[in-house]
């Protein structure tokens, strides 16, 4: 045992100091590490730079809680509900604090992470040509008719997956968004997982292992850790929860109440889940992938 398995509180405490650049929500709408984000809030982390494609409410919550100094993302809001009210308050009124926004498109944030993964200063692309995003994001430039997307290197990527072993070999499935490049680009990966499994499971399918274990320094067994986002094979998306959050976060006071009830007043994920109708969200019909034969002799 490598000692990588730890509680969420310990993982966040040890690996995500104030001022960190943190990639989260890298699979877009599914597998969003809400439990990790809430622990960041509980530990009153400050001056974070958040990196992601879209964030479906998690970035909005961290911004509202005052954890964030900058966002490098393609979209920040609430996918099924629209605008992110905390994001708006921060950008428009500096409430609870002003934040810097490095605008990206989905493709450009992916390329920014690939640039970091391959350790080059930037990667060229034709996307964003003609877009004013080039005016507002100082890490994008034009030269020789191409846009050059500056590398974004997260200090930490936090990735929620269906299963992982104690050494951090993680299996995730469904659409993967920018997860692979985020993990490769990051200095450290924290895995949070629905199931903590024996390595005979993960190593039975090395093609499905997301990252080299050398990048993964913490494994947190956190079932339901992605709620209200969906987890293929485990949980449906909790649409009503997103709607409720959107409604309640319209005002700063409403958001404060929401935060109290769902984050600050909750010591850990297990307690949080007691307040959710988990059974109605659980996926009951299994649909197993056909096995691949890794036989070698």
């Amino acid at each position, binding site marked *: 045992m490598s000692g990588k398995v730890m509680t969420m509180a310990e993982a966040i405490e040890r690996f995500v100091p104030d001022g960190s650049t943190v990639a989260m929500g890298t*699979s*877009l*709408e*599914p597998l969003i590490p809400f439990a990790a984000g809430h622990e960041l809030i509980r530990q009153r982390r400050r001056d974070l730079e958040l990196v992601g*494609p*879209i964030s*479906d409410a998690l970035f909005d919550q961290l911004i509202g809680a005052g954890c964030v100094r900058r966002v490098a*993302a*393609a*979209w*920040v*809001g609430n*996918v*099924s509900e*629209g*605008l*992110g009210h905390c*994001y*708006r308050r921060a*950008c*428009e009124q500096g409430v609870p604090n002003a934040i810097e*926004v490095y*605008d*990206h*498109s*989905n*493709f*450009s944030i*992916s*390329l920014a992470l690939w640039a970091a993964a391959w350790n080059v200063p930037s990667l060229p*692309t*034709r*996307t*964003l*040509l*003609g*877009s*004013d*995003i080039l005016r*507002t994001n100082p890490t994008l430039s034009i030269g020789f*008719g*191409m846009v050059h997307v500056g590398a974004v290197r997260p200090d930490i990527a936090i990735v929620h997956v269906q299963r992982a072993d104690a050494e951090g070999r993680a299996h995730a499935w*469904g*659409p*993967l*968004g*920018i*997860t*692979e*490049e985020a993990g490769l680009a990051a200095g450290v990966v924290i895995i949070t997982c629905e199931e903590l499994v024996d390595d005979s499971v993960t190593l039975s399918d090395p093609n499905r292992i997301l990252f080299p274990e050398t990048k993964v320094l913490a494994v947190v067994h956190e079932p339901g850790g992605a709620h209200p*986002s*969906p987890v*293929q*094979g485990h949980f*449906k*998306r909790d*649409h009503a929860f*997103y709607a409720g959050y959107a409604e309640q976060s319209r005002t700063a006071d409403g958001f404060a109440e929401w935060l109290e009830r769902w984050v600050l007043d909750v010591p850990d994920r297990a307690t949080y889940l007691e307040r959710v109708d988990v059974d109605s969200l659980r*996926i009951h019909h299994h*649909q197993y992938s056909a096995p691949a034969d890794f036989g070698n002799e």
Partner: protein
Amino acid sequence: MSNGAYTEQELMVAVASREIRDGDVVFVGMRLPILAYAVAISTHAPNARGLFEVGLMRDRPAGAFLGTMGDPPNVAGALWATRMSNVMALMAQGQVDLGFIGGAEVDRFGNLNTSYVGDPAKPKVKLPGSGGGADIAILSRRWVTLMNHERRRLVDRVSFVTSPGYGDGSPGWRKRNGILGGGPVAIITTLCVLRFPEGGGEAYVATVHPGHTVDEVREHTGWPVQIDPGVRETAPPTEAELSAVRSRTA
């Protein structure tokens, strides 16, 4: 709002579905575009492929309601579950025939703003941002946007171009900017369909939805909008289109 036989949204979905040609690879967004894709598959374009930026390809809409394109029913039966950058690679190669982009604001040259109202340094309204919108606007072969027809949404010039249409409207603007994709072909609103001249430029009203008038369109458009001399009524949804959309929304 409805004329009784169908809703405004059903009409928009039907009109949008007609933009999909059989065999097209379509970059599908949520809400109306995914319904349009479903209608096209059930009617005139059974071989259209749907591509989702989350990292999916499908040959039919999901079998259950989706709140987002990453919901589990959209993965079941997918033809490809991959990384976003692979989906974007196809689009960068010109292999995406049609994209749908949602927008908060569109201008007479088809530029979309989903980023900032007012000065980006001190915005009046901070919108969610590009998502994949700018990528679709720049890299797909042609694209369409759907919008509520309001003066504050159809504006003379957007203050911030998130997803470029035809820029300042001058001939060859996209080409001069190095953009390979073809640009917007239609703005489908709650009142009408605006189209663009061959090669791009300024939007004009091509058809007006049943029950609405050119004057009503002019009144709710933020610039003195051009009207096609041959402007006609938008063809209402067919029985087949209506039954397809209703089977998805019932």
